[in-house]
């Protein structure tokens, strides 16, 4: 589905990503972790081609074709994106935000057809956002707003969803709700997902693959459980972690030392 080969990215002469190589099959879940400034969000932006003015080396293949061969609309019918929370957003209603996600499928003039409205309805249903459809985004809580953005990515009807720190401003309850929703979309609907996160337990909880970055370099790529071997996380974060078994779930759980 997504194959990245020896990919490097530089902006204004500064190398931000260096020689990344990994691949993701259809329906897989990839968590990208690393300290601040490791280039995690930049990687997502390179995949959706926001950073067109930077210089790149290497290749990104999507469904067997080079990313550069896709025009922006065709690309956005394959990959959707949930941006980082916290920035200012115009007071669109939830339904309006979801309708905007149908842009890649609209003809000139921008009139929504029945298929577009059905996709919006389906996304509202799946995320449980139907009752909030007419509410303006600023009137929602952080958790509801983040769910609205996931619903908008879902309304885009793509095979891959990229999430940029989706739970960074959420309390534990809303984080758990969001993780449940993301798991359902990945496991039951087969959507390939790539999530940037600061929560080191997220990859262990989602049981997918994990990519560890440090200063733009790839330290590790593999199954989430394997990241616990050796000193990968200690090297990446220059910090010590304690790993223990969760008393309820039995899953390995990480705790940063004081």
């Amino acid at each position: 589905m997504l194959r990245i080969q020896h990919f490097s990215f530089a902006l204004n002469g500064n190398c931000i990503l260096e020689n990344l190589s990994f691949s993701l099959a259809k329906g897989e879940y990839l968590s990208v972790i690393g300290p601040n400034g490791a280039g995690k969000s930049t990687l997502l932006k390179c995949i959706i081609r926001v950073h067109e003015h930077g210089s790149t080396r290497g290749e990104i293949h999507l469904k067997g074709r080079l990313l550069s061969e896709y025009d922006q609309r065709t690309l956005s019918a394959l990959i959707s994106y949930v941006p980082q929370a916290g920035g200012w957003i115009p007071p669109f209603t939830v339904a309006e935000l979801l309708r905007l996600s149908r842009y890649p499928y609209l003809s000139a003039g921008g009139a929504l057809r029945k298929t577009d409205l059905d996709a919006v309805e389906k996304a509202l249903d799946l995320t449980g956002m139907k009752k909030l459809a007419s509410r303006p985004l600023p009137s929602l809580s952080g958790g509801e707003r983040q769910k609205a953005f996931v619903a908008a990515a879902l309304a885009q009807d793509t095979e891959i969803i990229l999430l940029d720190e989706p739970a960074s401003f959420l309390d534990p309850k809303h984080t758990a709700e969001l993780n449940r929703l993301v798991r359902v979309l990945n496991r039951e609907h087969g959507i390939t997902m790539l999530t940037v996160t600061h929560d080191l337990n997220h990859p262990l909880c989602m049981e997918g693959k994990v990519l560890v970055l440090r200063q733009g370099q790839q330290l590790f790529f593999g199954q989430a459980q394997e990241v616990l071997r050796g000193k990968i996380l200690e090297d990446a974060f220059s910090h010590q972690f304690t790993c223990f078994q969760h008393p309820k779930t039995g899953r390995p759980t990480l705790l940063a030392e004081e």
Partner: protein
Amino acid sequence: MKRTHTFVCLLLFCGAIVAASPFWGMSTISPSSIWTAGHPDAEVFWRLRFPRTLVAFLAGAGLSISGMVFQALLRNPLATPFTLGVSSGAALGASVYFRLGVFLPVLGSMGTLGAALCGSLLSMAIVYLLTRARGGLSTAVMLLAGVVINFFFSSLVMFTQYLSDANDSLRIMHWLMGSLTGLEIFRIPDLAFVVIVGALVIRHFSMEIDLLAAGEELAASRGVRTNRAKLYVFVIASIIVGTVVSLTGPIGFVGMMIPHICRLWLGWTHRTLLPAAFFLGGCFLVVCDLCARSIMAPAEMPIGIITALIGGPFFLWVLFKSCRAGGLLQ
């Protein structure tokens, strides 16, 4: 349904204001007299007040939709034709033309239009290139570049005025205040063409504008070619501003206030917002023009002063009301 209702009420209100405005002024004109050939009131109505009302409406509509576009693309309520330097670019072009006008009589008044358009596009191009040089089209950099260009061009306008003789200097000063007196009626079709076609093109880009207002990353991830869409819409808005400024001089507040009020009313979907901003902007300037020619009659106040006098307090009232209600004004 509620929006349709609001919109129909707005249309009826604007229609009534625009239709009634030419009958009022220094003297009131009876509706029956305008159809009597040779009647002095008919002459005043058809030769002076009706074309003037038409220009006021088109100028208000043009400035309002341009302001709406700038605010949405830069996601900032302070982004208007003025803060981005587009108006001062147009003003500089026209001022230079006034100064050189005696040497270019063959161009006539089309020269003012051409010079103002060149000025607005030049300022837009400089802002664009300065922003681009910093990588991408960052909103913050564009806004700062616009403010700098605005100050720089305003200084050049003053310098041009300083170099002019008393007549040209007075002409430039009066024009800089924004005025609808002494309009060139034959240029109304040009203005109508630019404003109406510009509005239709902006409507075509309404979904791109919505997405760009939601954020550049989000827009790109939804398939918008962000730099290209921004460039097209900026050029169109600049052409509208240049054309309006060439005819009326720079008129402030319309492009800042009217889109705000419309957003509070109708939300942020630009397909709905555009016609509202168009009609309300037009209607607002018609009312301002009516005040300009009535308050100190028989003398006339420059319309730019009226827009600031009416627009400023009204804008503050809307702002405070919105903040108290936890409203949508950002």
